[in-house]
């Protein structure tokens, strides 16, 4: 501790006190920042903690080393080793009449003055203080002082020395006779007492590490090494000692003291401090000179079978305690708080700091994250409702809402999904229209077109034939437009799919405009009206929009601009509109002017405005692009949609292979296999569902539902799926055969050749023949008996003990009763005993063992998953 560089020491008993020593001793108390905030002179150590200066002691100049008295009382007693080899007892912040008064100021003086390098209190006999000194000829370098000893003039000490030492202190406080003198003709650089025995002292001497046994001072064990600085015993593993030399740390095992068991990777700069973590096994912190990081070595030691040389694994880490990258002068572990340390910089700036353990973490299936830090576990779950929640949470929520299951009002599924996703909205409306017009065509017996609808607008317009071109007038004016509008049967089908026109032969957008107005989509409505060449209606819509609640008054301005429309090529209106329209923020307003100002047939301003819904752009294209332009545009848009995985594009691709490609891209982006599964199950039972990718999404979705324990939802999904894809129906899972004739006892199964679903019915279902249900239909031998009521299976349950009234109510109707679950065959797969399901359930409510005598099978506990409750039981 060279004067300028501060060192730090924690109080061994006060968890909130520490001492900084450089040229003087300063005692600090550490506290939470909240309580210390108001007091002046507190120093923030971290975000939560601050230190308060309690006392300063500058009585002891030339400090070289300091050691804190290890016992509780007297508190704040410190031994200071000085440059002249003297050891002085001093204290900080003590009341003058405290117990250690007589100890205070006591000095222990060696025969020859030389630097005191290290001090160590004996942790058992706290009167013993060991001091390590530099070499002085043949003198001893390790002196063990007894702090309770009184001053006794010693004959061996020359008189002048005593006079010299007593000159500046009160007599009676100077002790010159050490209890033990060790390490003759050597220097001592570091010391520590060994926890193995109170009389064992480990010393880092000039060129060796030595263990002195005070029971026999003539004996010492030693090993020659250079690593003699900073010897320190692992508090958790008493045979393990660390010492260092220059940049290298050596780890010793005292049982095999011949050589270090381990040397850590050498650091380029010399080490200044090495300390074991007191709160955690095998964690060693090291600090090198002028460094801003503390290097930690995490030693995981193996079980050491005798004679087996296992090298411990070491995980090296470095931590940077100061956020401003400042150099660390010294550090000290907190004696009890886990992995906590305070570091001090050369200019005495202090930082309170906790070394975090390696955190391991895992996600659960329900968006909960668990992590382990040190010895503690933390669970973290996604909080309250939010728009941008994770898709896993969204899918769970949607599954619970029955998303995808509305097969009549298909568009409602987007509401079940939360109703806030424009892509899903578009998708489900598309599927709704597709379903609607397929049904229409089915009624009209137009089978050929029926399959076309689900193949999307891309294929519909390709098959287009007999397109007529007409030029219509602006509504309410006689003037002929030069805008060509194209019509064909396929084009109007496309318009229907886009939702612009309704069912039936007439081409009328009015109902669509009305619904848009109702939803407050004024700009969109106005644009649609305009595209249908009805400026007056568009202006009317905009006015209405401006005057509506929360209306945008700017719409009136737009309406004004619109009313000035002129089809003259070089008019000022046209010139200004085509330049100013780009400044309009709302895309639909922008495309309105784009339409009005563009040359006939060149509508790129409308067609490639990506903020406009795909269905509107497609509908526009179907009206105004000719037979060569239209497929090209649709193809281009389709590829764009496929690339982006935009569900609006399903309108174009339909549920074809193209649609699966698009969906693949969507799943790649979002992971939303739920929408993918439901969407592709909507269409006609075609080849699409057989696509391996689709099967893969369906399997993944089912797996998700299983992991969430949404078993009921999964079952519902399977039912839904089997309606559209009958091949997915699973075969019967269990067959029960008669003990005597070996034939299946299932009545229904014998009637309908094995088609599955059998197992819900054996023995109990009302078979058409209504023969005795208690016997095998094949050989008429009776079925086994229920282990509880001892009736042959097939006998309806009369009453279940323990589940009284509920059943009696249900008993009223005989048919219902027959179908009841309580009458089912059940048996334990382990012990093969069984009976009526109802009887069994009520038995196992109070018992854990099988009801059959002498059978100790714990039937109900065998299946852990069976004991889990579905999380979606409704």
């Amino acid at each position, binding site marked *: 501790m060279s004067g300028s560089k501060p060192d730090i020491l924690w109080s061994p008993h006060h968890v909130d006190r520490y001492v900084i020593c450089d040229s003087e001793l300063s005692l600090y108390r550490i506290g939470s920042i909240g309580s210390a905030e108001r007091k002046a002179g507190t120093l923030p150590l971290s975000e939560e903690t601050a230190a308060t200066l309690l006392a300063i002691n500058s009585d002891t100049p030339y400090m070289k080393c300091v050691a804190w008295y290890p016992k509780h009382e007297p508190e704040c007693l410190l031994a200071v080793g000085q440059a002249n080899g003297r050891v002085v007892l001093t204290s900080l912040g003590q009341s003058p009449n405290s117990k250690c008064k007589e100890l205070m100021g006591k000095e222990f003086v060696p025969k020859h003055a030389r630097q005191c390098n290290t001090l160590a209190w004996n942790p058992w006999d706290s009167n013993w203080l060991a001091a390590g000194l530099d070499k002085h000829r043949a003198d001893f370098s390790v002196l063990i002082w007894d702090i309770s000893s009184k001053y006794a003039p010693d004959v061996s000490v020359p008189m002048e020395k005593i006079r010299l030492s007593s000159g500046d202190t009160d007599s009676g406080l100077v002790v010159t006779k050490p209890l033990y003198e060790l390490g003759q003709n050597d220097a001592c650089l570091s010391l520590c007492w060994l926890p193995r025995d109170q009389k064992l002292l480990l010393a880092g001497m000039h060129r060796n590490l030595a263990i002195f046994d005070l029971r026999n001072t003539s004996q010492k064990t030693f090993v020659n090494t250079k690593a003699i600085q900073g010897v320190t015993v692992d508090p958790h593993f008493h045979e393990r000692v660390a010492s260092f030399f220059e940049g290298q740390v050596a780890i010793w095992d005292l049982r095999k003291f011949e050589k270090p068991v381990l040397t850590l990777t050498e650091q380029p700069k010399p080490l200044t401090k090495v300390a074991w973590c007191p709160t955690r096994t095998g964690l060693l912190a090291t600090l090198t000179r002028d460094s801003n990081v503390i290097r930690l070595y995490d030693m995981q030691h*193996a079980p050491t079978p005798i004679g087996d040389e296992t090298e411990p694994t070491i995980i090296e880490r470095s931590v940077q305690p100061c*956020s401003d990258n400042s150099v660390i002068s010294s550090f000290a572990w907190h004696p009890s708080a886990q992995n906590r340390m305070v570091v001090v910089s050369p200019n005495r700036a202090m930082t309170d700091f906790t070394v975090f353990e390696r955190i391991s973490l*895992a996600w659960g299936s*329900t968006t909960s994250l668990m992590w382990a*830090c040190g*010895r503690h576990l*933390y669970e973290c*779950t996604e909080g309250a409702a939010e728009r941008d929640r994770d898709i896993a949470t969204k899918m769970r929520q949607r599954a619970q809402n029955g998303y995808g299951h509305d097969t009549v009002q298909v568009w409602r599924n987007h509401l079940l999904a939360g109703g806030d996703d424009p892509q899903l909205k578009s998708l489900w409306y598309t599927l709704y229209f597709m379903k609607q017009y397929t049904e229409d065509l089915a009624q009209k017996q137009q089978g050929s077109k029926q399959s076309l609808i689900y193949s999307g607008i891309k294929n519909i317009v390709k098959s287009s034939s007999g397109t007529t071109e007409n030029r219509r007038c602006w509504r309410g004016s006689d003037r002929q437009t030069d805008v060509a509008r194209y019509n064909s049967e396929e084009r109007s089908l496309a318009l229907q799919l886009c939702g612009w026109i309704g069912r039936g032969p007439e081409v009328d957008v009015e109902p669509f405009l009305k619904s848009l107005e109702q939803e407050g989509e004024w700009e969109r409505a106005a644009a649609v009206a305009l595209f249908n060449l009805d400026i007056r209606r568009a202006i009317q819509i905009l006015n209405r929009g401006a005057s509506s609640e929360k209306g945008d008054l700017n719409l009136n301005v737009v309406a004004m601009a619109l009313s000035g429309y002129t089809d003259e090529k070089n008019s000022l209106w046209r010139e200004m509109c085509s330049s100013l329209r780009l400044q309009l923020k709302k895309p639909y307003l922008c495309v309105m002017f784009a339409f009005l100002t563009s040359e006939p047939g060149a509508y790129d301003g409308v067609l490639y405005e990506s903020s406009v819904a795909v269905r509107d752009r497609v509908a526009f294209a179907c009206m105004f692009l000719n037979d060569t332009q239209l497929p090209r545009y649709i193809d281009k848009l389709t590829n764009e949609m496929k690339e982006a995985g935009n569900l609006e594009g399903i309108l174009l691709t339909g549920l074809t292979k193209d649609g699966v490609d698009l969906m693949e891209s969507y799943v790649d982006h979002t*992971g939303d296999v739920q929408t993918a599964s439901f969407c592709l199950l909507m269409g006609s039972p075609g080849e699409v569902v057989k696509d391996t990718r689709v099967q893969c999404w369906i399997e993944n979705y089912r797996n998700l539902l299983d992991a969430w324990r949404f078993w009921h939802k999964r079952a519902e999904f399977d039912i839904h799926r089997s309606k559209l894809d009958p091949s997915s129906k699973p075969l019967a899972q269990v067959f029960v055969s008669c003990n005597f004739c070996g034939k299946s006892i299932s009545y229904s199964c014998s009637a309908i050749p094995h088609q599955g679903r059998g197992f819900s019915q054996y023995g109990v279902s009302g078979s058409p023949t209504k023969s005795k249900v208690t016997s095998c239909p094949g050989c008429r031998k009776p079925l086994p008996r229920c282990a509880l009521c001892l009736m042959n299976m097939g006998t309806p349950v009369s009453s279940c003990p323990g589940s009284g009234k509920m059943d009696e109510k249900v008993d009223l109707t005989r048919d219902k009763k027959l179908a009841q679950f309580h009458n089912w065959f059940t048996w334990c797969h382990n012990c093969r005993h069984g009976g009526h399901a109802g009887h069994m359930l009520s038995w196992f409510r109070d018992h854990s063992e099988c009801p059959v005598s002498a059978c100790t099978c714990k039937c109900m506990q065998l299946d*852990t998953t069976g004991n889990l409750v579905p999380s979606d039981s409704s």
Partner: protein
Amino acid sequence: MFVARSIAADHRDLIHDVSYDFHGRRMATCSSDQSVKVWDKSDDGEWHCTASWKTHSGSVWRVTWAHPEFGQVLASCSFDRTAAVWEEIVGESNDKQRGLSHWIKRTTLVDSRTSVTDVKFAPKHMGLMLTTCSADGVVRIYEAPDVMNLSQWSLQHEISCKLSCSCISWNPSSSRAHPPMFAVGSDDNVTYTGKVQIFEYNENTRKYAKAETLMTVTDPVHDVSFAPNLGRSFHVLAIATKDVRIFKLVPLRRETTTTSGPTKFEVQVMAQFDNHNSQVWRVSWNITSTLLASSGDDGCVRLWKANYMDNWKCTGILRGDGTPVNGTSGQAGAANTTGPSGTLASQAAAGGAVSAGRPKAQLMPG
């Protein structure tokens, strides 16, 4: 927004691994105290320790669950050079009432000569298979041919990786289009080479062959994790090394149907974050692989999420002890980061800036 709460773990030493079962209702932890604990979630959402037993004679590095269709089965691996398989059995009559379960050791796998650093079950469609990797650089794949008898495991494959292995991850894809595949990470810090190797099963040779080495990852790797595939057309691999890295492996379509060589991949780096500003220890994907959690030496857990455009960003930071990250330390961490993720770091700091007064750590999306 994520809310963290603490659970009294009661381990006597460092916890090295946490693992959820398939349903997320059970959890296993393992520790340096040589024990494994099993936790069950009660209906009120609280976790209760239902079993705790000494499993190994050294630190237990990892613990993992088998799919529940194989029963309640755990595997653990340890510094004591072994891996073990455990099965829950129905214990004494009053065990259930006391909320305790009983686990017995079904087998000990003793083939490794060094510390077994990771253990993972293969995806369930491959059957009951267990993989271990060890510090001597060997990956071993065991199979239980009879799922009713978990004491019989045969060593099917021994794959030498030439580098000390630290972690292993199976590609969870069950699609028939994807042959079984796993990634091995190495924490070797001596050789300068790619530290993540990807092996793929070859149907013809019935062996695993190296399909890819991620040559850009040259620093020690502490964890690898394949994202749940969920029917995507590509694979995503997260790597914990000196930073968080997310790789995208796009299988290239084979020219001919009967190629014997391994699948070729187009390897892309989707994201790379050095926000931890230190070694990253673990990475974990959520069930839809839309959220990635990482933990680093800075003592923080960070959450990453991709937007629709595949731009990954930090959506949350929590300190290891569950307290919020606020004020200087978070920003300091961000200020130190350099390179392309600088903007992300500042978002992360903003995400972490939460008022200190709250009793619980709360995270706002960044």
